[in-house]
């Protein structure tokens, strides 16, 4: 069993890095803070899979929920609105603050 670095409800920041390659972490989430909504699964790493490798070792994939104003500072809707993005564990770091 692959150990999980993050727990449901934990506050996490998406790493603000911009490597080349087949990346499944949307730009608009980089550097943003959200909370772990749930574990979506433990999946082959798409960044390796895309180049003919097997994607081993598999990586925990979390559903991370962001409040809209944390993604878009000028968000015009209800401030309770959210976006949930599937993000692989190696893109996340623990953070205490928003």
């Amino acid at each position, binding site marked *: 069993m692959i150990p999980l670095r993050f727990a449901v409800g934990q506050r996490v920041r998406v790493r603000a890095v911009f490597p080349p390659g087949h990346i499944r972490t*949307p730009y608009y989430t980089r550097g943003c803070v959200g909370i772990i909504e749930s574990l979506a*699964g433990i999946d082959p790493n798409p960044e390796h899979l895309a180049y003919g490798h097997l994607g081993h070792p598999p990586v925990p994939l979390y559903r991370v929920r962001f409040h*809209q104003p944390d*993604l878009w500072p000028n968000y015009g*809707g*209800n401030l309770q*609105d959210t976006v949930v*993005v599937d993000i692989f564990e190696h893109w996340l770091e623990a953070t205490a603050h928003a």
Partner: protein
Amino acid sequence: MPDHFHAHPEQPDIEDTPFTEHQVMAQALEELLIAKGFFTADAMRKGLEGMSTASPADGARRVGRFGEAAAFEERVLHSVNDTAMELSLHVGQIPIHAVKNTPQVHHVIVCTLCSCYPTALLGGSPDWYKSRAYRSRVVREPRAVLEEFGTHLPADIEVRVHDSTAERRYVVIPMRPEGTEGMTEAELAACVTRDCMIGTALPQVPQP
């Protein structure tokens, strides 16, 4: 000849444009896999046919069954793929996750990175779902986009957009509308359109 002299623009056949590198690669791969006996041409055709005959009505059947059995709803939220088998639907290996609308939360589905969609359950995705406009706007101004679809949500409900960026697909289970008490599974399914299961529309009860 009838008097038919105005020019018609020529509609190119698909073979009129040169094959792209990816078309050549896909064609070569297909021929190799068949030649080496991994699958037959007939199995491949059946697979393609299955994908293009999957339909939003299949997804709606599942929602319709909610009226019949609360236990079924619980199982759907646990695994769409497993419950599809109960309706004799084969929706493939890619996990499909159902999200259920409530009076507090309205869900909408998008894939901003490409156009991931629960094709095996709902059939091919609509063109607008693949457009840059929908993909870029629905994550940053979902309420404006929903308004353009004619979908008005109360200001106090949370709009929760799901960006399916990985090997997971999402489908929205709409709220059961008022006036559907006592409806059969088929009648309920008829209220649920494709867009309801993407989250850009709400189920409509047919007026008698």
